[in-house]
């Protein structure tokens, strides 16, 4: 087994650390929503590797461990009850069009997990946006169940939907611990922040990206929630509900699609954070993180270009 793994996978230390950082959220998803979460993750990772293998096999290349991370992130951004064929299709699409079509690991313009998520989010709106699963209860949580109970009241199923449709607010303690319904990995703030702490401590993810996204998000939603409290949730509630934290820690920090200059990273993060607030408050979609990342990805190289341009000019001014 280990031999086989060595033969087909590149060793990438950073990606391994990323997997460890995702572990708490992944275990949490099993505890909250049942053993089916493992099945979804398995299918997603399997198809991510398979899609990459199809492209690298000709030149005898090996699959990057980034494919494992992409598969896991995509699985954790799906609702627990998602049909497995949608998972397989989505991740294959994301890997082929988001990554391999651009030249594979290291050259992708968009985050493949987010490309995959945008594809299924737009295509299959009912199973992704309207079939939510409640939290499993009992002494062993989800570890003794296949799937948590169904939720009938779709309009107030998740913290974001409830706020948008009824103005109802979930208790903060529940949001921090994560026993609310939502996508598999996004519900628990604590587990995600454990991952974040690990990533920052091992320097596997750049804190500037996270800080940038948090700044953009908190500033804009603080202003807008004072002006239009019925449309935009207050920053704390907004950050704890939906996939904001998950995106901030695991997705915006993906090093390849993010800018390379340190000022650029901050601007890029802020752009993503600002777009999340705007889409959540004023668009038809309840959750805006997916599109925010796509927008930020699009402008990432341009931000880098701009920062380099201005830094060069400053140097010239100082020199003269």
């Amino acid at each position: 087994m280990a031999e086989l793994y060595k033969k087909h996978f590149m060793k990438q230390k950073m990606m391994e650390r990323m997997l460890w950082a995702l572990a708490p959220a992944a275990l949490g998803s099993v505890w909250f929503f049942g053993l089916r979460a493992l099945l979804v993750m398995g299918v997603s990772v399997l198809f991510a590797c398979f899609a990459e293998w199809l492209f690298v096999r000709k030149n005898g290349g090996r699959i990057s461990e980034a494919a494992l991370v992409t598969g896991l992130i995509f699985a954790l951004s799906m609702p627990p009850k998602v049909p497995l064929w949608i998972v397989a299709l989505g991740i294959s699409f994301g890997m082929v069009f988001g990554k391999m079509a651009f030249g594979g690991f290291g050259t992708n313009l968009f985050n493949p997990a987010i490309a995959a998520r945008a594809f299924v989010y737009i295509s299959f709106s009912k199973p992704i946006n309207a079939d939510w699963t409640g939290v499993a209860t009992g002494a062993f949580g989800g570890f003794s169940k296949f799937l948590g109970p169904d939720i009938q009241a779709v309009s107030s199923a998740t913290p974001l939907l409830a706020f948008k449709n009824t103005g109802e607010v979930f208790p903060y303690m529940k949001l921090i611990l994560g026993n609310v319904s939502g996508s598999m990995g996004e519900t628990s703030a604590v587990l995600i922040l454990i991952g974040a702490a690990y990533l920052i401590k091992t320097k596997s993810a750049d804190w500037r990206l996270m800080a940038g996204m948090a700044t953009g998000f908190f500033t804009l939603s603080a202003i807008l929630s004072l002006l239009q409290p019925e449309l935009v949730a207050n920053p704390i509630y907004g950050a704890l509900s939906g996939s904001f934290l998950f995106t901030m820690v695991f997705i915006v920090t993906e090093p390849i699609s993010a800018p390379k200059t340190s000022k650029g990273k901050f601007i890029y993060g802020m752009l993503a954070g600002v777009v999340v607030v705007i889409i959540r408050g004023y668009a038809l979609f309840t959750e805006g993180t997916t599109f925010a990342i796509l927008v930020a990805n699009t402008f990432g190289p341009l931000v880098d270009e701009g920062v380099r341009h201005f830094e060069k000019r400053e140097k010239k001014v100082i020199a003269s």
Partner: protein
Amino acid sequence: MAKIKTKDVWIMGIWKENPVVIQVLGICSALAVTNRMDNALIMGAGLIFVTAFSEFTVSILRMHTPKHIRMMVQVLIISAFVIIVDIYLKAYLPNASKALGPYVGLIITNCIIMGRCEVFAQKNRPAISFLDGIFNGIGYTLVLMVVAFARELLGFGTFFGIPVMGQGWMNWVIMIMPPGAFFMLALVVWGVNTVREKQETSESAGEVKAR
């Protein structure tokens, strides 16, 4: 100039120099009208008609058109035929005419027609120009049909409006929207070019062996 054979004309138009996949012309309409197969078919038929007759007319007039105003003459000729198609659709296929909307009128801006008139009809005899128009139109239509087949099948679960995917089918909404067209067209171009590359390498390998 060497005489062009009929066989070359259809191989060029449909496969070797397919206007959409190889020359990447006429993409706008290929993206816009491929959400349903009947739309794509009517659009393709319109284009075949316009290209064939425009090339024919341009070729007849090629000796009498002053070089510096030839483009204007070509546009006039093309627009005359486009208007005929438009009026015909409005009269006999009003539903299709509505579904296609402005894209019938926009056939005039389709680069394929202008390109063929300029490249082919200006230099060749009327009969072969007419054939060239037909086969380039068919090449365009074939690509459109493939893209539309996949988009309609996945997006609506139907084939020419007939449901074929059964009860449990879930529509892929993205396929009906413009992004779906981009992805499908890209896939078709990708696929065709891969096949062509293989064909060409095997052909050149064969030549080396023959020597």
